[in-house]
């Protein structure tokens, strides 16, 4: 059940995106053809406030090399203040991943508006580069690719 020897490891990053801003930012990156590593898997939620630490930690336990929590800029939340709640929950998650023995660079929070396609692409590039340096997540179950 070992990872295939000759298959090179590539980081796999799970991003939770809010429907209104950051998912739109990823769309805008696409429309602008901003090339980025094929490391990202987006899961769409209506609001960053819907991102449950349960989802984030499950992603790590399933083998994510990094997890991105993204949403609208503070003050721009479609649901008034969902992203402020996200901020509070993120602070908790940040503490938790250290407890789990994960490097802090594996969890990121970013506010990206629907017009910030270039920012989205740069963010994916930067995180992928960081994770590539760190190597596979120590929590990755054996046999996962």
């Amino acid at each position: 059940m070992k990872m295939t020897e000759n298959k090179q490891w590539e980081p796999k990053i799970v991003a939770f995106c809010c429907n209104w801003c950051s998912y739109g930012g990823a769309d805008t990156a696409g429309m602008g053809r901003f090339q980025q590593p094929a490391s990202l898997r987006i899961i769409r939620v209506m609001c960053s406030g819907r991102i449950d630490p349960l989802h984030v930690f499950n992603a790590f336990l399933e083998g994510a090399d990094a997890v991105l929590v993204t949403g609208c800029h503070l003050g721009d939340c479609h649901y008034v203040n969902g992203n402020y709640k996200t901020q509070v929950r993120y602070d908790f998650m940040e503490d938790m991943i250290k407890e789990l023995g994960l490097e802090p660079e594996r969890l990121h929070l970013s506010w990206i508006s629907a017009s910030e396609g270039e920012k989205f692409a740069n963010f994916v590039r930067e995180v992928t580069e960081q994770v590539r340096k760190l190597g596979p997540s120590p929590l990755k179950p054996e046999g996962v690719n």
Partner: protein
Amino acid sequence: MDEPRIGVFICECGVNIGGVIDCQAVADYAGTLPDVIRSSVNKYTCSDSGQSEIKQAIKDNNLNRVLVAACTPKTHEPIFRACVEEAGLNPYLFEFVNIREHCSWIHMQEKEAATGKACELVRMGVSRASKLEPLQSNEVPVTNTALVIGAGVAGMQSALDIAEMGYKVYLVEKNPSIGGKMAQLDKTFPTNDCSICILGPKMVEVARNKNIELMTYSEVEEVDGYVGNFKVKVRHKARYVDTNTCTGCGLCVQKCPVEVPNIEFNEGIGTRKAIYIPFPQAVPLRAVIDKSVCIDCGACSRACSSNSIIMEQEDTFSELDIGVIVVTAGFDVYDPEPTHDFGYGLYDNVITGMELERLINASGPTMGKVVRPSDVKPPKKVGFIQCVGSRDKKRNRYCSSFCCMYALKDAQLIREKYPDSEVYIMYMDMRTPFRNYEEFYDRARDMGIRFIRGKPGKVTENDDGGVKVRVEDTLTNDIINLDLDLLVLSVGAVSSESTERIRQILKVSRAADGFLMEAHPKLKPVDTTLDGIFIGGVSQGPKDIPYSVSQGSACAARASRYLAQGKAITEGITVEVNHDICVACGICVPMCPFQALSIEEGKLNIIKALCKGCGTCAVACPTGALQQNHFRNDQLLAQVKNVFTFEE
């Protein structure tokens, strides 16, 4: 619900997806996934034939879930939901996977990786699809009133159109008079007809219309609720004048001893009093006191024969029930002062296009005489510099679209008024689209206006107050030194502070250029992503008068769809509680910004009509009793689990 029977449709989107991703390979892979009954590739899944194929497949294979892997759900989810609904499926049993914006377009050079990623995205989608449940959309009543924010020419048109359809309109304007920027202009291109002569009657029409309630010198403070049921709080700023009795005679203005620069209407050229009427054609034609400079001498009070001055007046507020909202909150002209572009703010005789509008306007501070600010003499040589603040990576990248035309217009007006003057226009490109605009440019050439292709590098001041402009003519490669009496900067448009304020109140998106962002650049140019809120005029992006008016009308038409039907359909994505597990702890209650949750008689109560489906409360629930429909934990976790595969 029956066992999931999923149909998967992979869209090639012509070459948009098919040119990068091996769609057949993705479809073949999808066919191996659990619960997938059939999978196929379409050239264009959203086309009529693509949709027919989905409907046929639902019938032939008795499908109860449909997954389309194509473009973004933000534009196409409603189309496919309607499609599966026509085939008899609940629209929420449809799942969308984005393999265009999030895959083929961003991995154009890595075809293999893109195909692999598309397979994984489809796998995630299939796992979620198998857990989808049918939901009901909610129907909400729509209050038959509209709110139009901003009474420039776009907002006035929007208000008139809605009012003439028979609906009540509240038109809120922050300034003491309606009319917007157009009221400040002298002439309008390409016909050179007098701006206020065509705008003035329209302003009167707005004021006279029985269905329009005009709220000038007022600002929207708070907006709550959702499509059809907005609760809006408006602040009416104290004018210190009773608008019911004031006749606009202006005697108070004559007696007022305080003079300050007239920044609001005359761009700081000339003065106004502490009590003033914004401009001669103002609607309403009523005085207003600027308390920040008033010395409370009482001269106006004594002069007023109708006792209309109320020094102790305070701001008042209105609470409005609104069905639909149109935002036409306008723009600012680019301000070259802080960066001293081309010597503006350093040299007296460098002015902006808007300042020239006021100088050249017969009702302006100089009665229409164009003069140099330094010595109040008519200039003999006038130069225009185009693209100031526009098409500039250091300022604003976008083209402000109307500056070429207003420079051509003002150049012609100067040549008409002062036939012996010399006029130069320094430009990067002249941009004159639309009917009669290019002809207008030709006319300017025929009138002897000289065009220099090149953006000046250096502007210095001469001893006589004139300015020397050094510019390379990039058509002849000559360096030209122009000695000018007056230099006019054709400044562009920027999003205004008041637009930004209203944007934040309404939660409308902003584009990268700072202007309000439409729901779709092509097909929904005046819609926002928020149901019942529409945007138009220059608050949506720079545009000229006819385009602004068209957008005002477009907003009215789009908004009145809701008003005419008297109802709106809202998403079925709301939160739901399992009372068997809920312990009524109340942790969720303050999480909801819409007051949809409450504990009543020891039980959690959810008002579905107030729930907007953000799901923030569900995360807070310690027992898992609260679940957000369509984004249930099991649905999201199915996606998380399927990001990865295990090698056996």
